């Protein structure tokens, strides 16, 4: 598109400004024979203003807040994953609800038959949903005490 210089633009605008709407109205209604409902332009103007300048801004959720929610969710998921899938947890089976421990025992009895692992993991994933938060916390505490600290003490 051609660049218009400022003076030309000003002159065009002033001349267009002087182009009377009445003249256009006459051309279209009388000469061309088309018309509009009475009061249409003021109604239409209000409609347009409602959809533009009068429209209230939509509430915005803070990105920071969203980030925190995702971080908390990720932390919980990580916590559950560690507590369920860590092999060392086989020592703490007493603490896991029966439905989860059955899957783990099956895994042990199958001597880590990798063909069955996927289906068992799925079972664990589903059944782990039934584990209470308290039990998970207790499991993690025990893991830390029994495994990490004992290992540390014994190694010394």
């Amino acid at each position: 598109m051609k660049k218009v210089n400022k003076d030309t633009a000003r002159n065009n605008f002033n001349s267009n400004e002087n182009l009377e709407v009445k003249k256009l109205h006459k051309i279209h209604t009388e000469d061309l024979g088309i018309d509009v409902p009475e009061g249409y332009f003021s109604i239409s103007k209000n409609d347009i203003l409602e959809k533009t300048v009068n429209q209230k801004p939509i509430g915005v959720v803070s990105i920071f807040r969203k980030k925190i929610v995702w971080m908390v969710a990720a932390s919980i998921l990580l916590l559950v994953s560690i507590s369920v899938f860590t092999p060392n947890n086989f020592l703490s089976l007493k603490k896991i609800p029966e439905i989860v421990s059955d899957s783990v025992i099956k895994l042990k009895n199958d001597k880590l038959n990798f063909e069955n692992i996927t289906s068992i993991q799925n079972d664990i994933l589903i059944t782990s949903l039934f584990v209470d938060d308290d039990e998970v916390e207790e499991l993690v505490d025990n893991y830390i005490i029994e495994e990490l600290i004992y290992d540390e003490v014994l190694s010394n």
Partner: protein
Amino acid sequence: MKNEIEFIKKLLNTKQRDKAFKELLNLYQERLYWHIRKIVLTHEDANDVMQNTFLRVYKSLPNFKQKSSLHTWMYRIAYNESLRFIEKNKKRLNISFSEIENTYLNSLEGDSFFNGDEVQLKLQSILSEIPEKQLRIFQMKYYDDLKFSEIEEILSIKIGTIKSSYYKTVKHIEKNIVQIELLS
């Protein structure tokens, strides 16, 4: 409103934009309505297209680069919105532009907001026979009172082509009007 430059400054200023937009609406609402109405033909469709045009103008204002005058920019948006509407209907109905024009011409006769007499209808009928681009050029020059240079910017067609197209249409109308008068 003193001049376009000052007015554009207001439109681009976030604090003054809403007030300036109201002024813009006052200035262009009726002009753009007539421009759109001649393309889509019925009042209801023209109303929809005009609303969409001003919504687009409002959203696009922060991106207005002043490569063209505000006047031609407004008409260009209105023109494109009208074509988009026609294109939508064409796809839905799966018929050609001339068929749509004829459909519109028929609906125009049944439009309660069309007050034209037989001669005016005949003129519309003659105009519906000419190619689309030629028709738009004629409408912009003859009815919208736009300059050739402004039409050039709106349609992005060379000014020489626009002028020759306009005079070709005028000749076509003269020829057909004479035929009508001879027959009646």
